Every structure is written in C-alpha cells, then in structure tokens.
C-alpha cells in the first residue's frame, strides 16, 4: 500500500523533526510546541496502528492537558530568554555521541533480530480492534483495579499539585492556582 507507507513516512518524519525541535529549540516555548507536534504525529501513527481510542486519548490527555500545563508554566515563569547557552556546552558533544551510540546499537540490534526491515507480516485485526468499546470493556473488566488505582493516583497528584503550587494562604490566589 503506497498510501500507507506515505502516511507513515510523513508522520514519522514529522515526529522525528519535532522531537529534534524539542531538544534543539533555544526557547522553551518552541520546545513545547515542537513536543505538541510530536504528540500529534504519534497520535496519527496510533491511528495507523488501528488504535483509534488511544489516538484521541493521546491528543486529549497529552496535548489538551499535559502540554497545556507545561505551556502555562512557561508563560507564567515568563522565561523569555535564559541567559547564555541553554545547552550544557562542555559535555554537549560527548553526550550526543553517547546517545547516538545508544541509537545505533539498538538499531543494529533490532534490525538484525528482525531480519532487516522485512519483519513479520502484519496480521489482520478484528473490526473492533482498538475502538472505544473494546478498550473500555477491557478497562472496566479485566483491568478495573489498575484503572481505579490510576484514578486514585491522579486525584492524589492533583491535590498534591494544588498544595505544592499554593502560595502563602494570605496572598491573593494567583492564576495558576485557578488553572490547577
């Protein structure tokens, strides 16, 4: 399928380029927007992988909540221009070298193990694979306990964040508090 490959290469490249943007942008806001791009691209890839529910969840949760929080914090702290080089100069090359080493080794490993890019044939999926009812049924039956547990965890995190981010009680409540 030409279209399929095209789709993958387009969004794959988008994800990689945006990921690079996260690391290289001088300004945190640009990093954040790049990350949003990566996430949307990954959501698109989820769609290609027939995980429709996850694709939407990815956008709603990551883009709509997580990244908004980050973007908010950036603009609240108003970190317009951090003084000097945002990178750590002395170790920059060494570190990149190590990361690339990791990349190459694992790439070699993976490709070798799966006989090049040929890989196993893509199995066909049932028509309701990855759709909301399927995943929901799993979540509320087999994985009910983890689901509830994560819910509790999230609640705890929200309360914790509110407490942490709270300024002195006598001060006027600030904006980020409202937003939490």
């Amino acid at each position, binding site marked *: 399928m030409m279209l399929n490959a095209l789709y993958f290469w387009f969004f794959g490249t988008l994800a990689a380029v945006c*990921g690079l943007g996260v690391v290289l942008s001088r300004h945190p806001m640009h990093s954040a927007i790049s990350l949003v791009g990566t996430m949307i691209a990954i959501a698109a890839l989820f769609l290609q992988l027939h995980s429709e529910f996850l694709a939407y969840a990815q956008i709603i949760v990551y883009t709509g909540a997580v990244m908004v929080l980050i973007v908010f914090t950036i603009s609240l702290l108003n970190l317009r221009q*951090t003084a000097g080089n*945002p990178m*750590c100069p002395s170790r920059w090359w060494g570190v990149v070298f190590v990361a690339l080493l990791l990349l190459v080794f694992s790439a070699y490993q993976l490709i070798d193990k799966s006989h090049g*890019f040929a890989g196993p044939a893509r199995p066909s999926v049932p028509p309701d694979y990855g759709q909301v009812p399927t995943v929901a049924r799993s979540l509320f039956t*087999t994985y009910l306990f983890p689901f509830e547990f994560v819910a509790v965890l999230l609640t705890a*995190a929200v309360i*914790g964040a509110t407490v942490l*981010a709270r300024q002195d009680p006598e001060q006027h409540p600030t904006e980020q508090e409202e937003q939490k």
Partner: protein
Amino acid sequence: MITLSHYLFLSMILFALGVTGLMVRRNAIILLMSVELMLNAANLAVVAFARFRPAPASADNGMVLVFMVMAVAAAEVAIGLAILLNLYRQRRTVNADELNVLKG
C-alpha cells in the same frame, strides 16, 4: 510495506532524542518535556507491538498499558510543574544546573 521494525526504529529515534534532551538541556521544564518525549516513544513501541502481535485477540493489553502510562504521565507532570513553580518562587531559577544542593 511498513513493518514493526519501522515503528520500533521511529520509537527509538524519539527515545534517543528524549535522552539527549535530558542530558544536554539546562532548563528543568525542558527536562520534563524530554521525559514526556521518552514516554511517548515507549508508548508508540507498545502500541506497535500490540498491533503486530501474532494473536491480536488479546491485544488490547498493550492499549490499556498505554492508557495507564498516559494517566501516570499526567500525574507526573502536574506534580513536577508544581514543584518547579515552588522552586522558581524560592530560587528564582529553573536552571537544573543551579539546583545542585544535594551534591556530595
């Protein structure tokens, strides 16, 4: 033909980018974002594995896992940012290099 390896390779690239970001950047918020990038890369790999499993009948295990990861990531970011805000109020910086009081 797009295979599992393609997805894994992409996932690996993103993960490596995340690691790089974690190591080279100074801004604590960007460190957080790098962690998110790594998590996303892992999610992609998990979903790809779920899709390419020989028996996709029970493949929603992988999706449930990713769902959980998303929730945990959201919690992590909420707490992380709250800590950062507090830190900024007290130290007037989010530069990770200046936050090294815990050194030996």
